[in-house]
């Protein structure tokens, strides 16, 4: 924000009056609401405060990424909800991007069948409310899956049934060494790319950076297996019979159907918008750019990488970030199918138990708000950086 403009010109009274009226009006509304809230809370014998966050929550959460049970505090329950929101958003963003880019490119395909299929995908999934899609996957499609004892079997390592999707668990030893090696690989790749770019700008010589980067990314972590003492085993899910009719899978990781249907619906819905952005971005690069690049002798791959993509990305990225943000906000629809995200855990269960509507709703809204604002600040910075510098 630009605070330079924040000076009030007292000479011009005509400008002052509407501003004073606005400010006074806003203050009056706030004062009125605060007064009522205080009266109401006083009548019900509750006092405003965030102290309840450290109290014992005494409710369970079905699905949690960190250690949690009823003996933990409300603050911890909030954290569980937040992590679940982030989890489904990250999964959704990942698949939405892949699907969206594929469909966006397909819409521009010369192949009539491909472009029409992509177009109809966009028309169908964009025009159906997201909440209905979530309901469809959760209540209709995933409920039609078989019971645990007749699960759909994927090569004996992964099973899909009505209770969820069971995948192998990764059991690591010395996981942190492996993690460091990946970080180290990224640092090396980053410096390599900078060096390659510098060299290309100076001498025009090309280094096959993509191949070398991939090699580094595989070789460095692989070395840790050989000399770093890192090892990996898989906990493969196994069917266990508890009683004559009750079967469960143990070992392995269970991906609950709520998460599957939410991630599926979110990514399929958001992909339609990303596809439109990608299409607009590629169409937005003028034909002359490609022709100019071809006329100085760049190959097709080079044209795409060095001329088309940098310009298309400038058009694609801002609205796509907006879609990522929308996806994150839309993940709050989880409450409708009881996926324990921040809205269900905190604005639902915790609010029901404590009755502290103002505190809890304000925390929930503030969480989303800070997320959105930080992303929009980042976007403004990015737009400024990427804007074409005209002479």
């Amino acid at each position: 924000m630009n605070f330079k403009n924040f000076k009030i010109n007292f000479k011009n009274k005509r400008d002052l009056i509407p501003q004073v009226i606005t400010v006074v009006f806003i203050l009056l509304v706030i004062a009125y609401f605060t007064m009522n809230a205080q009266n109401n809370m006083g009548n019900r014998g509750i006092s405003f405060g965030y102290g309840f966050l450290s109290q014992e929550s005494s409710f369970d959460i079905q699905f949690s990424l960190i250690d949690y049970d009823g003996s933990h505090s409300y603050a911890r329950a909030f954290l569980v909800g937040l992590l679940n929101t982030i989890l489904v958003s990250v999964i959704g963003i990942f698949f939405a991007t892949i699907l969206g880019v594929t469909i966006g490119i397909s819409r521009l395909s010369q192949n009539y069948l491909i472009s029409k299929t992509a177009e109809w995908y966009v028309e169908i999934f964009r025009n159906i409310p997201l909440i209905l899609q979530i309901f469809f996957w959760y209540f209709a499609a995933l409920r039609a899956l078989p019971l645990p004892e007749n699960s759909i079997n994927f090569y004996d390592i992964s099973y899909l049934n009505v209770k969820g999707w069971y995948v192998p668990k990764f059991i690591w030893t010395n996981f942190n060494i492996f993690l460091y090696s990946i970080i180290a690989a990224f640092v090396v790749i980053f410096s390599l790319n900078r060096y390659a770019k510098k060299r290309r700008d100076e001498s025009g010589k090309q280094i096959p950076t993509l191949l070398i980067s991939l090699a580094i990314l595989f070789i460095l972590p692989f070395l840790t297996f050989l000399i770093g003492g890192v090892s990996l085993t898989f906990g493969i899910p196994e069917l266990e019979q508890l009683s004559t009719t009750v079967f469960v899978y143990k070992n392995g990781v269970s991906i609950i159907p709520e998460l599957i249907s939410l991630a599926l619906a979110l990514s399929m819905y958001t992909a339609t918008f990303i596809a439109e952005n990608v299409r607009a971005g590629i169409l937005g690069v003028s034909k002359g750019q490609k022709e100019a690049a071809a006329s100085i002798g760049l190959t097709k791959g080079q044209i795409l990488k060095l001329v088309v993509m940098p310009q298309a990305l400038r058009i694609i990225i801002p609205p796509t970030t907006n879609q990522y943000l929308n996806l994150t906000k839309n993940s709050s629809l989880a409450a409708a199918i009881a996926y324990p995200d921040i809205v269900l855990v905190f604005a639902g269960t915790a609010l029901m138990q404590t009755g502290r509507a103002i505190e809890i709703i304000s925390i929930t809204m503030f969480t989303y708000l800070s997320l959105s604002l930080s992303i929009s600040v980042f976007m403004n910075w990015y737009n400024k950086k990427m804007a074409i510098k005209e002479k």
Partner: protein
Amino acid sequence: MKLSFLKPNKEKINNFLISGSFLIVLSLADVIINNIFDINLTAFLPEKLSYFAPILLGTIGLYLIRIEFSGNKLLDKINTNFNSNNFNAILTLLILFALIKFIPPLLNWFFFDANFLGDTKEDCSGSGACWVFIKVWLGRFVYGMYPDSEQWRINIAFIMLFLLVGASFFVPAKVKKYFILFLLFIYPIIGLKLISGGDFGLKYIETGAWGGLSLTFIVSAFALILCFPIGMFLALGRRSDLPAIRYSSIGFIELWRGVPLITVLFMSAVMFPMFLPDGTYVDKLIRVLIAITLFEAAYMAEVIRGGLQALPKGQYEAAKSLGMGYWKMHFLIILPQALKLVIPGIANTFLALVKDTPLIFVVGLLELAGMVNLAKTNPKWLGMAMEGYVFAGLVFWIICYVMSRYSQNLEKKLSTER
């Protein structure tokens, strides 16, 4: 080694066409027969080869008919649109196979094996969809819990709306302005009074009983009418020279745009009553309408601001040089042009609003999607979730698709090429 005799060329066009088409027909026939009669024509081949036989045959066939500038118009069209290279040929085949595989079962489920007759779940004996469920519950899906004997009121309100909207296209230009003002400001009150009742001998129906598709329309229509002017003033406020107004507009817009609608609805349900004097009761529907309106107004403001920013500065300067004041300049010169520029954005905001209406289930109001949720838990109709959601999805899809098409037409009609 060069297989030049296998390179399709114009000289032996007939040979290539015949052999190519034969292979393509063979590959499609294999897939079709496999799907419909469950007979594998290529069963004599090894398992993997038999699996990939159709795509191999089809690709070779398409390769053989890929003759450039063959002189045959149809062939050239097929080659450029479906068969420009091997990769495209494979994609074409894969899509054709997928269509052959998935379209018949879908059609079967939808029509041929579906049940349309009867009025209990037991009448659904076929393997397809049970549309009896939709037929029996249609009244609830459209009118919610509104009493059967009073449903004519909703019908009349909506018929009136359609007649008025239809008539607005035909009235003379002079009356049109007042006509639209009537439609925007007077009619909503009449319609609402007709549906809620309480006066003129009409039975009072509380909003809790409203529901179904009619509620979807009521909520979207009211939010739509109300969010537009608020959004417009917010957009002007955000571009105002007066800092207090600018920053309060920015704060308002960013606050609503930063949070998901569901938390706003939660707020209107549990937090808003705390902010009112003890004992005041604001109707659920009105609270929801306020929440949705303010939420969508923030989005509308950003869309309109985009239009305001896109207008060349000369328009403002020209208006000022004619001696127009702030309001006159904006309402006569700036806004008409800015709004025209952002019709697609406005249409998208309206579409988002219609798609957001199912969320009012948070406060216990059940529109179409909510009614489907309720109906599928009815003990007599368990297991009907698929039919219910497909029906609701179809209804929403038609509404949204028609709206988006209409906005595209409007955009074309209003575009003034310079």
